[in-house]
C-alpha cells in the first residue's frame, strides 16, 4: 500500500500526502494523492485511477475515516486523476466532485450523476472545507484545457496537479525535493511535452508568483519547499513548452 505522510498540521488543519506504493505495477504512472482536513471535514485532491484505489484507500484510512470525505477536487479529467471516482462513490454516494465546467459532462463517464459534480468556472472558485476556504486557481492548458490548482491560504500550500511533476528514477524518489538542480532534470521532458501553451504558462507563472507559497505539491514526483517554489516558477517561465523534441 501507499504511505500516508502528514506534511502540514496546525490546530485542526492538516495535509496528508498519500505516496509511493512499492507494489505499484510499473506500467502505471506513479501519482500522489492529497487529503486536506479541517475540523473533521475533508477534501481529497486528485484521488487517482481505478487501479490504485486499494493502495490509496488503505493508506488514507490509517490517518482518517474515509467516510468523512465529503468532497473531491479533480484538477482535470485524466484517468490517473479521477477514474477511481465510482469507487469513492460506492463508499459515499453523496460525495461532491469539483471539476472544471469543461469536463463536467465528460467525467460522469467514470461515474456519478447530476448531483455529484460542481462545475468550476474558468476564473476559479472557493471551496469550503471545515472552517477554511481553499481557492481553485486557474491553470488552463497546463496541460489540460480545463485545469485548476488548489491553494490553501492557511497552510500556504499550492496543489499544482501536473505542473511541477517529475518522473523520478528509483533511488531518487524522496517525498521532498532535496537538490533542485538534480531534481529538475526529471521534470524537464515532462513539462516540455505535456504543457502545451507558452501563453498559458506565462499567465500561470505571474498568477502564482503573487501567492504566498511554502509548499508546492504536484500530482507526480516530489514536493517543492520554500525557496524551491520560487526557483521552480523561474525555471518554468524560462522553459520552452509545447515541443515534441529538443
Amino acid at each position, binding site marked *: *500500500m501507499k504511505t500516508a505522510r502528514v506534511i502540514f498540521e496546525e490546530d485542526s488543519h492538516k495535509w496528508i500526502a498519500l505516496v509511493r506504493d512499492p507494489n505499484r505495477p510499473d506500467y502505471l504512472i506513479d501519482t500522489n494523492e492529497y487529503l486536506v482536513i479541517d475540523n473533521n471535514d475533508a477534501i481529497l485532491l486528485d484521488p487517482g485511477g*481505478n487501479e490504485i*484505489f*486499494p*493502495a490509496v*484507500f*488503505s493508506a*488514507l*484510512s*490509517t490517518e482518517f*475515516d*474515509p*467516510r468523512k470525505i465529503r468532497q473531491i477536487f479533480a484538477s482535470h479529467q485524466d484517468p490517473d486523476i479521477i477514474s477511481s471516482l*465510482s*469507487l469513492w462513490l*460506492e*463508499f459515499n454516494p453523496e460525495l461532491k466532485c469539483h471539476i472544471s465546467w469543461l469536463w463536467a459532462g465528460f467525467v460522469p463517464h467514470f461515474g456519478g450523476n447530476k448531483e455529484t459534480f460542481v462545475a468550476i468556472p474558468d476564473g476559479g472558485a472557493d471551496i469550503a472545507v471545515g472552517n477554511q476556504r481553499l481557492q481553485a486557481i486557474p491553470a488552463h492548458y497546463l496541460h489540460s484545457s480545463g485545469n485548476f490548482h488548489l491553494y490553501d491560504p492557511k497552510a500556504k500550500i499550492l496543489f499544482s496537479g501536473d505542473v511541477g511533476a517529475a518522473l523520478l528514477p528509483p533511488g531518487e524518489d524522496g517525498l521532498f525535493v532535496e537538490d533542485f538542480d538534480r531534481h529538475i532534470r526529471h521534470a524537464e521532458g515532462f513539462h516540455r511535452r505535456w504543457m502545451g501553451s507558452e501563453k498559458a504558462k506565462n499567465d500561470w507563472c505571474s498568477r502564482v508568483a503573487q501567492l504566498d507559497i511554502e509548499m508546492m505539491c504536484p500530482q507526480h514526483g516530489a514536493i517543492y519547499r520554500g525557496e524551491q517554489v520560487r526557483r521552480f516558477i523561474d525555471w518554468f517561465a524560462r522553459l520552452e513548452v509545447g515541443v515534441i523534441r529538443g
Partner: protein
Amino acid sequence: MAAVTQDSGVELRRIVRTNEEIKSVVATASRINLMAMNAIFLAKRAGQTALGFGVLSNELRRFAMDLQKQMALLREMTYGSVATVTALVKQARVNRVLERTRKESGGSGLTLIDEFMRTRHGASSVRHREQIAALNRRLNQMIADTAQLVELGSVLARSAKIEAAYGGPFAAALMQVSSDFERTIGTIQRSLENLTKQQDV
C-alpha cells in the same frame, strides 16, 4: 466474495450465449416473411388449380407476421438482458477492487471495509440473484411461447406440402416453396431447443 465474482462471470457467459442463439433465431425468422409472400404469389398464379394451397399460404403469411412480432419481443428482451449483464460486470469489477483493498488494509480501515463489503455484498447479491432469476423466468416464458407458435408454423408447412401435390402444373413450384418453409421452421425449432437446453443447465 470470489465465488460471487466467478458466478457472475459464468452467468454472463451464459447470457451472452443465449443472446447469440436468439440472434440466429431472429435472423432465420426474417426469411419466413419473404417465403410467405412468395407462397401467396405462387398460389395466385396457380389460381383455381391450387385453392387449398391458397388458403394455407394466407395462414402462413399470418404466421410469419406473428413470428415477426415475437422476434421483436425477443430482441427487446435481449437488449434488456445486456443492460443487466453490464451492471453485473461492473459490480463484479467493483467487488474485485474491494477485495484487493481489503487485503491491503489493516486496523480501522480493514474493519470499515469488511463492514462495507458485508452490507454491500448482502444487498447486491440478493438483488442480483433476483434480477437474474427474473431475467431467466421471462426468457423461458418467451422461448416457450415462441416454440408453440413455431409448432403451428410447422403444421402449416406440412399441410402446405400436402396441398402442393394437388397444384397441377404448379405442383413442383409449390412443393419447393413449402419444403423451404418446412426446412426453415425446422432450423428455428432446433435453435429454440438449444435455448431451452441452455436454460436448464
